[in-house]
Structures are given as structure tokens and as C-alpha cells.
């Protein structure tokens, strides 16, 4: 999976995801621009996390989950049998709602994942480089042997971002990365996302509309159809979505008049 000069980092075509008999999302066709931040917003249960998790096949861990349609990454459907999901997850990393550092030192949190993935370079340099990229180095450089669990929530989340960066992915998926953080820690993550977007493609699922408005370049609005399956209603530049949405359902949601 070599880097290609493709405008889009990832693209879905007619993506449907089922949990057993229940269709969680239907007919999602979306293109995510390279080196841009795209937010997916929508009410609870509209399938936005399900779609996000399908981009690195995290749904494989749910026994009843299956997907039809295509998720194209470097012109290949990631659900093709030839794709190695472990390798895929190295290229498409993920940051979760609750910071989940390993119960190890700060240093090992970065080094361990990289080593498992076959990193053979200078580990000290890798740790420093990724912690700098995650805007955490200055705060922890003298405490690298300290337990990661001793860090604040915001620092833990940046450590998890650093850990994701250590395996040199192309895309970073973020599933509500700030919902457990205070406002200042949240703004730090948003600043960090902006920095990272120079080198990475970021797709973020958020309940926080102001966060989507502040931090993303593009926004996609999902909602639940009458059969409770999630559908994509509108995709556009973030500035357009929040000032002049085209679809009444988007308008109702972002003005808080949903339901």
C-alpha cells in the first residue's frame, strides 16, 4: 500500500453496514480529501461511529457485523479478501473517546506499538519525534519513565495520538476524541489536529457541533432514516454547512431544532 498521488485519502461507494438483520447505515457514498479534516456529525444512533470504524475494519471484531458496498483506499476495496486488516490498521490509525494508554511508561506506550509493527530504527528518536508531533514532548520529556496513567486526561489523549502516529499512518480516525476532556484540553487537541492535517488525513466523529465548526474543513451530516438506518444527508465545506446548509434536516439539527 504505497502512497499515491490521489486527491482522496479514502472513499466509500454505496456502503451498507449491518449488525445481524439490522441495517445500521445504508448507501453511504463519501469522499475524504487528503490532508484535510472531515467531521461526521449527527444524532446518537445515526451510524457515524459505525461508518468511522468501517474505515479500518474495526467492525470485524463485532461478530454479527457485515458490510456491503466499497471502502476504497488506494483504489482498493478494503473489504477485499487480499487486504490484511492488521496492515490496514497500521495505515489507518484510531483514537477513541476515552483515552486508553497502556498501563506502561510514557516511553513504552510509544515504543511498544512501533516495535510490534516492526520498527527497527532509533527508538529514542521515534519517541521524541512523535511526542513532539502530538504537542506533548515539552510536558513529559523529563518524565518519560513515568506511568502513562499518571498523566491528565488531555495528556493521555495526546499520548494516544502520539502512539497512533508512531506507526506512521496516513489516516487518523478520531471517535469523539474530546468528549472526556475539559475545554482547554479540547482546544489543545483541536490545535493539534490542525497541525497534524499537514501530514495526515483526519476523520473525526463528534457530538459537539461547535467542535466540528471550529476544527474541520469538511462536514458530513448523518441522520436516521424512518427505518432507523443511518443515512448521509449532506456533505459540504464546514463553513457552508454551518452558515447555509442545503437540507432542511441539516438545518434543523445544527440549529438545535431536531426532534
Amino acid at each position, binding site marked *: 500500500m504505497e502512497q499515491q498521488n490521489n486527491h482522496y485519502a479514502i472513499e466509500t461507494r454505496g456502503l451498507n453496514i449491518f449488525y445481524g438483520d439490522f441495517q445500521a447505515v445504508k448507501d453511504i457514498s463519501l469522499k475524504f480529501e487528503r490532508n484535510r479534516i472531515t467531521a461526521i456529525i449527527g444524532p446518537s444512533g445515526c451510524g457515524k461511529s459505525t461508518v468511522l470504524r468501517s474505515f479500518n475494519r474495526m467492525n470485524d471484531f463485532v461478530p454479527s457485523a457485515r458490510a456491503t458496498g466499497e471502502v476504497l483506499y488506494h483504489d482498493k476495496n478494503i473489504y477485499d479478501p487480499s487486504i490484511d486488516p492488521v496492515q490496514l490498521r497500521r495505515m489507518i490509525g484510531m483514537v477513541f473517546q476515552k483515552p486508553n494508554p497502556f498501563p506502561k511508561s510514557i516511553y513504552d506506550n510509544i515504543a511498544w506499538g512501533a516495535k510490534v509493527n516492526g520498527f527497527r530504527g532509533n527508538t529514542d528518536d521515534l519517541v521524541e519525534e512523535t511526542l513532539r508531533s502530538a504537542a506533548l514532548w515539552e510536558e513529559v520529556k523529563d518524565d518519560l519513565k513515568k506511568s502513562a496513567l499518571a498523566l491528565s486526561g488531555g495528556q493521555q489523549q495526546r499520548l494516544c495520538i502520539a502512539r497512533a502516529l508512531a506507526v506512521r499512518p496516513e489516516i487518523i480516525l478520531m471517535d469523539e476524541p474530546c468528549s472526556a476532556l475539559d475545554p482547554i484540553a479540547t482546544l489543545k487537541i483541536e490545535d493539534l489536529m490542525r497541525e497534524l492535517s499537514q501530514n495526515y488525513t483526519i476523520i473525526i466523529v463528534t457530538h459537539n457541533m461547535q467542535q466540528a465548526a471550529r476544527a474541520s474543513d469538511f462536514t458530513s451530516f448523518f441522520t436516521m432514516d424512518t427505518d432507523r438506518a443511518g443515512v448521509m444527508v449532506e456533505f459540504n465545506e464546514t463553513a457552508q454547512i454551518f*452558515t*447555509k446548509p442545503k437540507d432542511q434536516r441539516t*438545518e434543523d439539527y*445544527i*440549529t438545535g*431544532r431536531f*426532534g
Partner: protein
Amino acid sequence: MPRNSLNKQLNMVQDEILLLGSMVEQATLNAVKTLKTRDIKQAREVFEQDQIINEKRFAIENAILILMATQQPMARDLRTLAALLEVNTELERIGDYAKGIAKVTMRMGEAEVNMPMLEIDQMAELAVDMLHRALGAFIEENANVALAIPKEDDRIDEWFNTAYTKILKEMVANPETIDQVNLALWVIHNLERMADRVSNICERTVFIATGELFEMDTMDEDDLNI
């Protein structure tokens, strides 16, 4: 439905805008009336009451900023509040035009001045009527009504041109009153500008309804004889 608090506060600001609008309308009609009656005392009242208009404008602006900060409006709500800010400013400026007309009465003093009062009256009545309807359409977010109103500006321009010619003729015929008659030019200028600002209000109504920002074509330089 959620957002009752935002809706309620938004309605309050809209009511205040309508109130400011009626103050400005009244000030304009009163100012023009003093030109006819040459009532300097009433002219002074109009002049001084502009201060109340200015204060109301700042109070409304403050209320809008607080709403923006506390309610984080989006989409149509955001456009409505941005438009309210804009219309608030337009109304304050129209108030200044009324104040300017009152000042003309004060400066003319007791001198006999031959002014084109017919055209001035017609301009003032139509401009105030346009303003009234424009504010109604603005609050109702009725883009169709708002789109039609600026077209009436053509009649204002016609009366302006007629009045302008009459004023120039008067200056030539009675040069000794030129200083006073010159003041009448300010009156028709203010009324003509007032109608233009009504068009700006109509533009904001279309903006709320459609999200489109554009200038309504109400005045070409060629339309006015100046």
C-alpha cells in the same frame, strides 16, 4: 421543540428592532413636518430625541452579542442575528437622516424659503412607508415582499430629480436666499438615502431566507441628476 430560550430571546430582539423602526419612522415624519410648520421647538425635540435612538441601537447590539455568545446560533439563526445587527445599524443611520432634516429647520430659522414641499412630502411618506413594510417583511423573513420593495425607489428618485431642478431654479431666481434653499438639497438627499437604506434592509431579509448576499440594484449614478 428545543431552543425555546433562543427563540424567546430572538423574538425579544426582533420586537426591539420593530420599536426602533417605529421611532425612526416617527422621527422622519416629525422632522419633515417641522419644515412645513417651521416649528423650531419641535425640530429641536426631534434633534435631541436622536440620542434615544442611538442608545436603543447600542442596547440592541449588546443584546445580539450576548445572544451570539451564549446561544451559539448556527445556520438560519446565525444569519438572522447577523442581519439584525446590520438592520440595527441601518435604522440608526436613518435616524441620523431625520435628525439632519430637523437640523435644517433649525438652521433656516424664521427666513422665508421656497422649498419643493410637495416632492419632499411625497418622498418622506413613501420612504417611511417602504421602511415600515421592509421591517415587516424582515421580521416575517418574507423574501418575496423584500424583493419587491426596492423597485419603488424609482419613484423616490423621480421626485428627487424634480425637487432638485426646482431647488436650482429657486437659487437662480432668488439668489439672496441661496444659503437657505441650499439646505433643502440636504433634505431631499437625506430622504433619497433613507430609501436606499430601506433597500439594504430588504437585502438582509433575502439573506436570512436564502443565505444569498447580493446588492439590490436600486440606484444607478445615472438615475440622479447630480
